[in-house]
C-alpha cells in the first residue's frame, strides 16, 4: 500500500492506495509551517490503514515553486559557465532584478565546453575554476553550465571535481543534470535548482521526521514534474524538478481514478481552475519556453490553461454582468465565505445555495436568489467549457474529468465532450496522482547520422532511456517509451536531435500483481 500526499497552497491532502483502490483519504488545510499539516494528514491516513500495511510514501509539494515565486529562502549561487569568454549574454541575463538579487553571488565565464558533436570546444581552464572555487563566499552553492553539456558532460564533470578539490564538500549543480539543449534556459534552471538546495534539505529532513513520528519506516519519494518520482537523495540534489508536480499529479490522479488514459482534466482549486489534456496517462507537455517567476527555462511541464475560477473566487454582479474571480479568498475560505459565517460572497456560497455542494451552513446563503445563482453558474460553466475546448487536440468528443475541491463547479454537459466524470476521490486527485507515480528517465541528445541510420540512433536512444529508467528504480518488465521525437537540425546535414522518455513502475514497492497488470498493457 502506498500513501500519496499533496501539499498545495490551500490544502494538504493524503490518500492510501491499495493497488488501484483508494482505501483511505483525508483533506486538511495547509499550515503556515507546512510540516505540521503534512504530519497531520499522514497520521490520519496511516492510522486508518495501519502503519504496518504502508510500503512507501510519495509527497508532491509546492514549497519549492513558492520559494522561487516569492524569492525567499533561496541560497546565494556562484555560476561558472564553460564557454568562450567573454560572453555577451552571461549568466543571469534577463532575470528579474528581485530574484537575481536574492540568488546571484558571482557569475563567471571560463574557457571550456563542447561542440554539438561532443568534441571539445576548447580545453577547460582548470586554473580559473580552482581560483573561483577557492575564493567563493562561504556557504554558497555552485552551478557549472557547459556548452553542449547535454551532448557531452565531460567538461562539467571535470569542473565539478576541481571545485570539490578546492572546496571539499561543495554543493555543485551541473546543468546537464537538469535541462536540455539551450544554454540560457538550462543554466537558469540549474541556478534556480542550486538556490533551492538548502531549503530542499530542510524540507526533506522534515518530511522524513514526520514519517518517523507516525512510526513509518518505509521509503519516501518526492513527485517530479513529469509524473515520476525521485528518491530523497535525488530530491535533495534536484528540487527544481518538483516545481510542476502539482498539476502533473492532479492530471494523472484524475485519469487514474476514472480509468481514462485519454481525457481532459479540469482541476478546480480554491483560486484557479487548471485544465489540461492527458494522453496515454500522462499530461501533454508544453512545447514552448516556460517562464518561472520571470526566468526563462526549458523544462517540459504540463501544458495547462489556468482560469481565475475556484471555490474561493469572489462573486459580484454589476449592471447584470456576472463577475467571478480572479480575486479569491484562497486558503481563508473557511473564515471568509458566507457559509462559514464570514462576510465574503464566494463561488462556494453560490454552489451551496444552488444545492451543488454541501459545506458549511446552508442557512447562511438561503437569501441568494435562484435566478442569481443560476446566472453565476452558467457563466462559470461557459468559461470552463471554452477552456476545455482549447485544451482538446481534435474535434472528437473526449471525456472531461472534474477534480479538485471545487469540482462541483464544472457543468454536466459541454459541447465536444463525451461525458463529465467525477471520480470517487476527486477532491484528493493530486494525492492519488502522487501515490500512483512511476519512475522514468529521459534522453535528449544530438546524434550524427553520417555513419548510422536514423532507426539505429532512435534504437540506441530508446535502449539508453530504458536502461536509465531501470537504474532509477523501475522494474525492467514494466518500462515503456511514453514519448519520443526526433528533429532534424536545420542547416546541418545528417544531424538529428532525439528526445525519448521511458517510464516504468517503481520497483522497490511494485507488487507482482501490479507488474502483471502493467506488463499486459
Amino acid at each position: 500500500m502506498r500513501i500519496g500526499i499533496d501539499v498545495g497552497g490551500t490544502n494538504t491532502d493524503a490518500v492510501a492506495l491499495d493497488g488501484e483502490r483508494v482505501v483511505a483519504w483525508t483533506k486538511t488545510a495547509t499550515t503556515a509551517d507546512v510540516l505540521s499539516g503534512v504530519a497531520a494528514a499522514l497520521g490520519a491516513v496511516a492510522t486508518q490503514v495501519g502503519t504496518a500495511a504502508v510500503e512507501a510514501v510519495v509527497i508532491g509539494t509546492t514549497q519549492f515553486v513558492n520559494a522561487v515565486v516569492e524569492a525567499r529562502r533561496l541560497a546565494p549561487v556562484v555560476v561558472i559557465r564553460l564557454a568562450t569568454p567573454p560572453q555577451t549574454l552571461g549568466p543571469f541575463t534577463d532575470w528579474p532584478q528581485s530574484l537575481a538579487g536574492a540568488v546571484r553571488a558571482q557569475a563567471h565565464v571560463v574557457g571550456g565546453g563542447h561542440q554539438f558533436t561532443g568534441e571539445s570546444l576548447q580545453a577547460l581552464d582548470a586554473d580559473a575554476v580552482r581560483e573561483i572555487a577557492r575564493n567563493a563566499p562561504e556557504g554558497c552553492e555552485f552551478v557549472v553550465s557547459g556548452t553542449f553539456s547535454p551532448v557531452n558532460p565531460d567538461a562539467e564533470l571535470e569542473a565539478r571535481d576541481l571545485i570539490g578539490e578546492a572546496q571539499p564538500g561543495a554543493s555543485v549543480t551541473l546543468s546537464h543534470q537538469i535541462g536540455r539543449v539551450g544554454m540560457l534556459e538550462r543554466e537558469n534552471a540549474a541556478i534556480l535548482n542550486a538556490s533551492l538546495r538548502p531549503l530542499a534539505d530542510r524540507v526533506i529532513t522534515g518530511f522524513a521526521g514526520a514519517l518517523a513520528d507516525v512510526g513509518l519506516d518505509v521509503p519516501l519519494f518526492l513527485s517530479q514534474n513529469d509524473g515520476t518520482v525521485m528518491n530523497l537523495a535525488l530530491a535533495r540534489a534536484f528540487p527544481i524538478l518538483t516545481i510542476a508536480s502539482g498539476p502533473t499529479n492532479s492530471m494523472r490522479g484524475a485519469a487514474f481514478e476514472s480509468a481514462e488514459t485519454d481525457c481532459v482534466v479540469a482541476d478546480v482549486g480554491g483560486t484557479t481552475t487548471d485544465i489540461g489534456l492527458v494522453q496515454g496517462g500522462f499530461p501533454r507537455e508544453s512545447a514552448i519556453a516556460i517562464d518561472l517567476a520571470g526566468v526563462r527555462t526549458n523544462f517540459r511541464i504540463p501544458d495547462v490553461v489556468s482560469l481565475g475560477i475556484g471555490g474561493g473566487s469572489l462573486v459580484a454582479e454589476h449592471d447584470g454582468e456576472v463577475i467571478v474571480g480572479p480575486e479569491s479568498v484562497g486558503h481563508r475560505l473557511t473564515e471568509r465565505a458566507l457559509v462559514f459565517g464570514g462576510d465574503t460572497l464566494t463561488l462556494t456560497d453560490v454552489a451551496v445555495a444552488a444545492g451543488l455542494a454541501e459545506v458549511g451552513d446552508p442557512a447562511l446563503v438561503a437569501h441568494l436568489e435562484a435566478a442569481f445563482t443560476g446566472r453565476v453558474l452558467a457563466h462559470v460553466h461557459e468559461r470552463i467549457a471554452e477552456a476545455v475546448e482549447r485544451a482538446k487536440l481534435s474535434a472528437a468528443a473526449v471525456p472531461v474529468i472534474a477534480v479538485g475541491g471545487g469540482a462541483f463547479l464544472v457543468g454536466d454537459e459541454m459541447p465536444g465532450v463525451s461525458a463529465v466524470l467525477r471520480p470517487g476521490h476527486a477532491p484528493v486527485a493530486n494525492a492519488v496522482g502522487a501515490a500512483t507515480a512511476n519512475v522514468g528517465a529521459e534522453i535528449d541528445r544530438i546524434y550524427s547520422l553520417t555513419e548510422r541510420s536514423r532507426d539505429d540512433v532512435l534504437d540506441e536512444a530508446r535502449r539508453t532511456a530504458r536502461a536509465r529508467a531501470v537504474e532509477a528504480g523501475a522494474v525492467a518488465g514494466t518500462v515503456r517509451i511514453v514519448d519520443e521525437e526526433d528533429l532534424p537540425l536545420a542547416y546541418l546535414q545528417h544531424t538529428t536531435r532525439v528526445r525519448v522518455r521511458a517510464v516504468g513502475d517503481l520497483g522497490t514497492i511494485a507488487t507482482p500483481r501490479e507488474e502483471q497488470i502493467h506488463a499486459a498493457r
Partner: protein
Amino acid sequence: MQLDEPVLDDLVTGATILAAGGGGDPYLGKLMARLSIREHGPVPLLDVAEIPDDARVVFVAGMGAPSVVVEKLPRASEIVAALDTLEQHLGYRFTHVAPAEAGGLNAVIPVTAAALRGIPMLDADGMGRAFPTLDLVTPALYGASTTPMSLVDEHGNRLVITAESNDWADRIARSAMITSGCVMMSALYPMSGAQAKQWLVRGALSLATRLGKVVRTARAGHTSPVDAVVAERGGARLFDGKVVGVERATEGGWTVGEAVLQGLDAFAGQQFRLGFRNEYLVGRRDGRIVATTPDLLMALERETGAPIPAEELRYGYRVAVIGLPCDERWRTEAGLRASGPRRFGYDVDFTPVEASNNDTVTDEVAR
C-alpha cells in the same frame, strides 16, 4: 527613427512574423540588442534615402544552425570582429550597417554592430523577409556579389572569402561554418550608398516595427492581432484551423515538411496544407494553391497573434495562416527564378496572395 528598447520589442515581434516560419528565434538577438542599447544608447535607424551616395554599407549577419546558436550564444566581440576583418581587407571603414534579412535573429544582429561602433543602421534589408541562404538577397538580383565577405568564429579564426560566384560563396561559407562548429558572424555584400538605395528593401525594419506594434495594440484592445497584421501589410488571412498533423524530414540539411490543418469557423469543413522548408513556402486550401514563396506565409496563434516558427508547429495548435506580399522585385522573372516555389523543389507556379483574397470573396459568395 531611433531604435530604443520599446521600439526593439515591437521590432522583434514583427521580425518573427517576417521570418515566415524560419530565421531562428530572435529572443537571443533581442537580448544582445537590448544590452547594446543600454550600454551605448539608442541606435539611429535611417531611411536609405537619407544617406549619401558614397556611404559605405554592409550587411552584418550570423550564419549557423538555430539549434546551435541557442547553445553557443552570440558574442558582441565577434559581431564587431566581422566588420573589422572585412574593413581590413577592403581598406576602408563602413559608415552604415544593414540586416541581410528583416526576419528572425538576423534582423537584430546588426543593432549590436551599430551600437558598439556608434554608426547608424539602415531601415532596409536585403530580403523583406527571411530566406535560408544568403545569396537570396535583392542585391543579387542586380548582379551584386556576396563577396568579399568576412567570417569570424569564437576560436579567433577570421576568414575573408572572395568567391567566383555567389553560389560558391554560399557553399564555401557553409563549409567553413560547419567546420568551425556551426555558428559564425559575417559581414557581406559591401555596397555604396547609391547601391543601397537601388538594391535594398526600403523600410523593412519600420515595417517589422509597425507589425509588432499592431499586434501589441490589438492584444491590449482585445481585438484580433491576426487581422491587424493582415490589414497593416495588405495581406490575406488564408485560413483558420487546427493542426491535425505535421510531417518533418531532413533533406540536405533542411527541415522539410508539411502541416495539415482542419478548418475552424469560416473555414470549417476545409483543409489546408502548409509546406515548409525552414520557412513556410507553399499553402494549399482544399487542394488549390493560395499562396507561395516568395510571398510570405506565416502561422500565427489565432488569439494572441504569436508567430509560430515551422520548427515549433505541432499537433493541436490553433493557428491563422496569413499571406503577406513580398517585395516586388522577387516577383520579377529573375526574382521568381531565385526565390519561387521551384527553387525549393515545389513543382507549382507562383501564386500571389492578392489572388487568394479574390478567392476568399468568391468562396463566401458561393456559400
